[in-house]
């Protein structure tokens, strides 16, 4: 018996999985360029998911399901198996007041990732509201420092200029 849910690729390039409770998760990645201080162009994958067709988070009324966490871990493992030097960002925007809660859950998920995969957590204040961001990349990425610096700088610029 698999410890994670079955991940299916959809025709629109999103991925889906269905939990034992019947919740449908649509997982998607959007790519963005990130330019570092040496003008290297990196691709960062913005990772997000939608549960049952909406983003609403109703104060943790759902029972904890460890298979969801393990499905996230499986997604990350597959991604870094395929692209050793991938960069992924997960960002908690505060559209519903639960950004901090989501970031805490996500940090716990990150603890389950393989040792060579590093999660760097940052929070900035944007228009008076906290924005929680995580950058996930391999610790063996030779450009790790440049990527991390560019990631941090871009986030701080957002916080300072808005």
């Amino acid at each position, binding site marked *: 018996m698999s410890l994670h849910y079955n991940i299916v690729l959809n025709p629109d390039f999103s991925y889906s999985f269905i939990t034992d409770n019947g919740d449908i998760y649509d997982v998607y*990645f959007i790519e963005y360029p990130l330019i570092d201080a040496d003008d290297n162009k990196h691709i960062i994958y913005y990772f997000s998911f939608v549960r049952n067709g909406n983003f609403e988070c109703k104060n943790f009324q759902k029972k904890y399901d460890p298979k969801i966490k393990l499905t996230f871990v499986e997604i990350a493992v597959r991604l870094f198996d395929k692209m050793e030097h991938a960069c992924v960002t997960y960002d908690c925007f505060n559209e519903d007041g639960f950004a901090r809660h989501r970031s805490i859950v996500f940090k716990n998920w990150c603890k389950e990732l393989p040792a060579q995969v590093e999660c760097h957590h940052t929070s900035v204040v*944007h228009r008076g509201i906290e924005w929680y*961001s995580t950058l996930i990349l391999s610790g063996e990425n030779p450009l790790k420092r440049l990527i991390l610096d560019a990631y941090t700088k871009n986030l701080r610029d957002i916080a300072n200029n808005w």
Partner: protein
Amino acid sequence: MATQKTTDTTEKPVAFNPFEQMMEDKKKIVKTVKSGKKVSSVKGIKIVAPL
């Protein structure tokens, strides 16, 4: 005689900030999902399948 001020009109190109774009895209995504549509129907974003 009034002193004429000179200003440097050479503007530095504004560097693309992926987080600025991400935030704008997220607003569009939330609006689209609230209307019952799929994320992939949002104009101007491209979903990729890196797995």
